[in-house]
């Protein structure tokens, strides 16, 4: 478990990093928190010619709460999402999902941008991004562009970042004061990869009907997806336990991850329904209770 030979660069600015990415293209990999990449290097699952360590780029470490968005620099450590009260106030779902990312040691090193760019099917932050319609800020030789999260994740471990581009920030819309959220994950052990997880955020109108709803699913296919059919069934309805249970059944057809040593396809289908149902009910309860810090 020793990595093969690679060249190491530690650019001090985004411009320098983009220049290196332009030069190496797919032969270079970006090192942010290293919680996945270092394992892949040591087990030789990946063999880049060059490693671009972006940890010296201080501008990527910034976290800003703007009038409409929470903007997280790509190097913001995951641990900050669960401990910074500003994040909890701005986008409480983010704080809720972060606790499920590995263990606290991983979260101290792991970054927001790293998790997005790694795009593991079981990862929590990509699911939060898809659920909350986050925007990915990407910089390349031609300048900055912004991509919707739901277009960003294209498959297992793949994103729309071009070989000469760098993900520099992720913008989450501020959560409305009356919204409730829920996140439910099932993993073999605490901190393990999710066998299935669901994130939900919704608002209720004065009659208790669902005024807006977003549900994102983790680990049921090769990238995070929205539970569009379930969302559509619940919109405008009073989210009783029965109604939620019935609507959650619609996610079953979205599950297509094959059997692995932890979960069969059939189990994952049942689990997807269960976590969807529980996440929505938790969101309903928070919306009803007005549970905001």
């Amino acid at each position, binding site marked *: *478990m*020793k*990595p*093969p*030979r690679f060249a190491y660069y530690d650019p001090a600015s985004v411009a320098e990093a983009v220049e290196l990415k332009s030069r190496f293209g797919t032969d270079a990999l970006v090192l942010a928190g290293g919680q996945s990449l270092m394992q892949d290097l040591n*087990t*030789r699952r990946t063999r880049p010619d060059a490693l671009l360590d972006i940890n010296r780029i201080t501008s990527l470490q910034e976290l800003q709460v703007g009038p409409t968005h929470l903007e997280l620099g790509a190097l913001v450590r995951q641990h900050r999402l669960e401990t910074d009260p500003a994040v909890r106030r701005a986008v409480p779902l983010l704080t809720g999902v972060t606790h499920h990312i590995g263990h606290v040691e991983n979260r101290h090193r792991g970054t927001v941008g790293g998790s997005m760019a790694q795009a593991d099917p079981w990862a929590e932050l990509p699911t939060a991004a898809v659920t909350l319609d986050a925007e990915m800020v990407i910089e390349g030789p031609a300048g900055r562009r912004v991509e919707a999260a739901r277009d960003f994740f294209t498959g297992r471990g793949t994103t729309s970042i071009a070989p000469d581009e760098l993900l520099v920030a992720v913008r989450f819309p501020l959560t409305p004061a009356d919204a409730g959220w829920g996140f439910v994950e*099932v993993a*073999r*052990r*605490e*901190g*393990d*990869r999710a*066998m299935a997880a669901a994130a939900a955020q919704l608002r209720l109108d004065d009659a208790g009907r669902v005024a807006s709803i977003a549900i994102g699913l983790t680990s049921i296919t090769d990238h995070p997806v929205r539970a569009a059919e379930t969302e559509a069934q619940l919109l405008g309805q009073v989210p009783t336990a029965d109604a939620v249970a019935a609507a959650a059944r619609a996610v079953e057809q979205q599950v297509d991850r094959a059997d*692995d*040593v*932890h*979960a*069969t396809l*059939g*189990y994952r289908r*049942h*689990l997807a329904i*269960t976590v969807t149902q529980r996440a929505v009910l938790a969101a309903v309860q928070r919306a009803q209770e007005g549970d905001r810090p």
Partner: protein
Amino acid sequence: MTTDITPAAVDAAPDGQPKRKWIGRSMKRVEDPRLLTGRGGFIADQKIPGLLHAAIYRSPVPHGRIVSIDATAALAIPGVVAVVTGEDCKAKMNPCMNFGPTTIPQYPLAVDKVRYVGEAVVAVIAESRYLAEDGVDALKVEFEELPPVVDPMKALQEDAALLHEEHGSNLAYERTFTFGEVDDAFAQADLVVSDTLHWGRSAGMPLETTGAIARPGLNGVLEIFCNSMNFSYFVWLIATALNVPSNRVTISPVPAGGSFGSKFTAHKVPTLAGFLALQVNRPVSYIEDRFDHIMNSDHHASDRYYDAKLAVTSDGILLGLDIDVVDDYGAYLQFGVGTHGNALSQGVGPYRIKNLRYGLRAVLTNKCQQGAYRGFGSEVQNWVLERLIDQAAERLGMAPEEIRRKNFIQPDEFPYKIPGGNLYDSGDYPAVLDKALSMIDLEHWRKEQKRLREEEGRYIGIGLATTQERSVFSSTEFWYWFDEPAFPITSSPESATITVDPAGEFQVLLHSQAMWGNSPETVAAMVVAEEFGVDPSTVNIRYADSAHALPGTGPGGSRFTVMVTGAIRGAAKKLQKKIIEIAAHTLEVPPEDMEITDGRVQVKGAPELGQSLAEVALTAYFFALNLPPGMTSGLEEAYTYDHPLTTLPSPDRSDLGIFYPIMGHNCHIAVMEVDPETGMTTWLDYVAVHDAGTIVNPITLGGHVTGGTAQGVGTAQLEELVYDSDGQFKSSSFWEYLVPSATEVPPMKLGHVETPSPYTEFGIKGGGEGGRMATPAVISAAIDDALREYGMRVRNLPVRPADIVAAVQAARQEQKAD
């Protein structure tokens, strides 16, 4: 964690004062300070000038002939020194040590054929491990693939491909033992419960893997530094494999960061390191990385398929047990079927079952070989027996504690000979059960179970098990399986040397590879302290290398504390005699009037008349003319302690003899919640009461119980070494092989009962295997109990959340169909 100790009856002298000063007292481990400050001196920390590093090319195919190995590109890498293959092994060494049939030979690098994914094929030796791995990457190895043999039942079919052509069959071993009148017992039974069970393949997974450094040294001696191996028992077998005279191989023990059985006689790593060093005539390090360890270790553990039956009367008396087990041993059979000797040593558990049939088929498949893991195969038998008893209790409407209590061997029946011939030395099983029941409010939980189900739709279950923990193996268990064993060994000794130096300070020399994360030094220090009345923190412990070692066997089968205590006490008695004789001679009093108390030798009843040990030591070393006539200088004694109670098997094997008599016992009770929609479980309560005879150190015994319970959780719910139907290995990292972490292990209440062994020093029994003896049984029972309305029955370990949900879903489908 709370601990509650019921003291042994012999623990107090008539005046009510504790009879012992150190044995039985909680003492922090003397090993800890150096381990916790990074001075453990582990194998990877050893710095040797000119050291080369080896990495292994592991087979990517489950079964195949090695057609060609092209090392041209690898050897062209600067820093790569040599490439060694199975051809070299075949030409220059003998097969590795092996207690199985000689028709199933093994080399540290595959010869001619590969027999499982991960088997070592080629070693690349380089200036660094990085370069060695680059060399491995550059190898071109061609295989002619053969049909993989994965399912042990299919392995026995006529048309199955053979793993070892010269053995002629994939059936490595078959025998059925019948003890008592089994058929009569089943004919008389009012109820026969039966089950088909599978105990899945797991393994000890220590933080530190197995590693060795070998160095060609002075006078043609090959020095091997190694964290595995009971070297004083087996160094000559390593020498035989390496074709080197046994006096030209020296193994030096290096402390290990955990074993759990995985370093017990782990021979492939030191053998390979030694062979590689001889090929390049330079020091070579081979330390398994996690891939090596998880897929090519010496020690995957039991992988057993059972058809098991239990004969019971209508009032719950257990009459007979009929076991038919197929054990999927993998590609080699290094220990023969010793893991089943462990099962037979406590085949009927703590129960008065008079009749036992045990049919075993050991099968060869394209998987890594089996070896040792905490319990050594006896824990599997515990699980099977407890599964059947739970089923009998349910069928008869008896509480789990009731049926067990009814069948316990009673305290006045010891020593008790079980079917098969092994002897249980002592025990008080009702006391252990009573103690466990006193530490948990079962009535509360049973009410709560009903209430939560009815009011909140939640499912909680209670599991209870009472199981044996045999300790102190005798080596007869390795060969009584065979009518004409090649090497019917009967020794399994342990030795100790105690030295009082000229300043009166104590040195203890241990003679085996004893430090595997356990507490050999703490035990040794406590026993010396007890014997001489000195503070244990002043006793220094060292380890002999194989060139200096007296006979020793090392830890394994929960033997070390019992055996090393016997050795130290034996040496202490000799040393005490010499000390008293010197002091008596100096003070001109009769030796029989003197005693050793609190580090002094003094006249009984007149403590002011005496000498310190330092004074005696000075005389012993420097004043020969002051010694009693005939006595020689120095103050050092050694003692070799043989197994305290073992007998030969009968020639016809109707009686296997006494081979594992120092019998511990335990009762575990678990309360768990099961979520039928996710299959996930949550701990609500857990009690573990163990009887390991006289306790030496409650802290370390508690650690064994807790750690064993954690590993029981792993085996029951998380850990599995999975080969798919094509023979590919699916569990090569810790993403797939899930070791329990703090969040998966129950908060435990620990209790101890002390029933001293009449056969060991101080009455100590082994307790090293701890909770793993019982935990799989209580988890299985608790899950069944929680989901009783779904007819849940755990038959396959580990029971994954997916399995639980599948069973619930199937039951719901059936209920809907009705």
